[in-house]
């Protein structure tokens, strides 16, 4: 009988489930990890609901960093941000490979490159996808300035990218108040001009309504749209390439995407 550890879809949730599953001493083959709401239920399985626990998650995180190295830790965190039904279990299996008794220190740091293993390959792949999407949003986020000087942006990402781009934008605009509302995942990044940033998981749905744009906002948008058109070389026009590099799902939320 398999015991399924069901956790919430956050880094803390997944790491807590890793901790509980490992500590349950049921044996690695007798446990499965699953994020809540990701999959249909299994017959002939016992379900245990895991409550995210900051201190357990912290211990798991520290162990991964110490034993498996910063590179691996970063990849696992990115994979945990993916929209994927099997990610929690795949991460658990990778940790089993790296943290089991008898694995040498040197091998533990190399586990993430053992791409022959389907679970490692899956985590590696997820991390790559999530990292790629986060990198794209570093460029594709568009702010508009509100009356009160706050910069407001809406995106709709597939994966949970906000925690991955938060540091970048906070460092880039240290003296700005800004919001990035991710409609795709239903969370919102908030940055205050004093340098604090955090993610609100369930932002109020009226967010964005009744917002007045600042006086010069419209003019700036006009200038930018004009620039995007005049910078293109007519003799080289290639809409297919443009769409390939900047798919519609991004354009929809971008200032210049609304023009053409």
């Amino acid at each position, binding site marked *: 009988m398999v015991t399924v550890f069901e956790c919430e879809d956050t880094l803390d949730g997944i790491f807590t489930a890793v901790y509980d599953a490992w500590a349950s001493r049921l044996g690695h083959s007798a446990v499965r990890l699953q994020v809540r709401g990701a999959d249909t239920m299994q017959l002939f399985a016992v379900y245990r609901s895991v409550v995210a626990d900051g201190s357990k998650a912290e211990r798991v995180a520290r162990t991964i960093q110490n034993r498996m190295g910063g590179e691996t830790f970063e990849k696992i965190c990115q994979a945990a941000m993916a929209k994927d039904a099997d990610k929690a279990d795949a991460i658990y299996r990778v940790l089993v490979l790296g943290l089991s008794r008898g694995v040498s220190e040197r091998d533990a740091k190399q586990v993430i490159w053992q791409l022959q293993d389907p679970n490692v390959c899956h985590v590696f792949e997820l991390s790559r996808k999530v990292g790629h999407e986060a990198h794209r949003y570093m460029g594709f986020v568009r702010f508009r300035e509100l009356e009160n000087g706050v910069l407001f942006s809406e995106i709709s990402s597939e994966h949970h990218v906000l925690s991955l781009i938060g540091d970048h934008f906070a460092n*880039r605009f240290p003296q700005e108040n800004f919001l990035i509302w991710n409609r795709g995942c239903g969370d919102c990044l908030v940055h205050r001009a004093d340098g604090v940033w955090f993610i609100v998981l369930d932002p109020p749905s009226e967010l964005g309504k009744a917002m007045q744009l600042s006086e010069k906002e419209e003019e700036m948008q006009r200038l930018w749209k*004009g620039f995007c058109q*005049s910078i*293109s*070389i007519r*003799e*080289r026009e*290639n809409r297919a390439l*443009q769409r390939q590099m900047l798919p519609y799902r991004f354009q929809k939320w971008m200032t210049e995407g609304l023009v053409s």
Partner: protein
Amino acid sequence: MRIAAGQSLYEKLNILSDAAKYDVACTSSGTDRRGSGQGIGNCIAPGICHSFSADGRCISLLKILFTNECVFDCKYCINRASNDVERAAFTPDEVCTLTMEFYRRNYIEGLFLSSGVLRNPAYTMELLTATLYKLRTEHHFEGYIHVKVIPGAPQELVSRIGFLADRVSINLELPTAESLRLLAPHKTRRRILSPMRQVQTLRSENKQELVQYRSAPRFVPAGQSTQMIIGATPENDYQILSVAESLYQKFELKRVFYSAFVQVTEDPLLPALPGGPPLLREHRLYQADWLLRFYQFQADELLSEQHPNFNVFLDPKCDWALSHLEQFPVEVGSADYRTLLRVPGIGPRSAQRIVRARRMGRLDYETLRKMGVVLKRAVYFITCNGRQMYPLRMDEDFILRNLLGSGDHGRPAETVTYRQLSLFDDLQPERVLQAL
């Protein structure tokens, strides 16, 4: 010269971005700089693309000319003195406003500032320097700045602007001195190469300084680049690639850009290109440029006096591999990194993954595919655990036929036994090139 009175900022931006668009470089890579917290902006090493224009090119920087007035009369250039176009000029404050407001909204990664030559090179350079100085000190802008050096600008201005910009570039424009003399009478090879050499020297001195004082100001941290126009003059690919190679080796350039010639002015000295700009040729040169920079190839290996142009139908790496079949197949389980890099369908990333993964266990074709190896191309050139994926002949004609007949993802067609037309022998690539 037409200068409309009272142009709005919108009109100026329109004219001066339109005039700047033939410059290719829009990269924001090469600098890793965290924001200080006191101003606005930072840089990350891989650079960031912020948008893509209708021609599919990346928009990363606010690419503008300071002014499109120009005393030079380069035949290929839309802003040449003798061309009748509407002229405009920004003020330093206007450039700063646009940069800051666009940057705040995350439209751009920074500023790309070039200019026509107003009065003389020194005066123009002075204006550019003043603008950047304002942007860095008054507006505390810490984002990316790429600035053009005007050929003939005095040395002290070059060394000053290098401390304000992340990247500088001086356009080589044309691959040979003769072509330059013909099409750009106001520019000489020496006036282009001497600032390039100066930037190189100052950069290496600055590196020494940074070893001693970590907080010393950084000179052109993202390195310098240049650009050549392709197809306006009769140089072949071999000449162009050799020039690029020597720029990388002797001048330590970060990038050489190739710009397919777009006919924007009429001149008897310019070629007529009824088929539009030579985009495919430009593409092949970029592919070859990648081979020089990331795949440890040399120009001499890819082209020669006897074979001076790239094959239109095959990318340079496949082309090279096909003419060096004696070096294949390569065993992925044991070949060194450098050898793996030479296999079509394997790039630096997948080669690195192969090298690291095979220490942990055996590889198979499915794993290779997941690692990012393009098996459609690689399959002819590799063995895995001593076996080919399918029984395949190491035969040039056979492989060529299958590489060109791409699109079918299954087994290569083995049934065709008669000898098909060879692109190399029956159609000379040069003739095909001309026909395109």
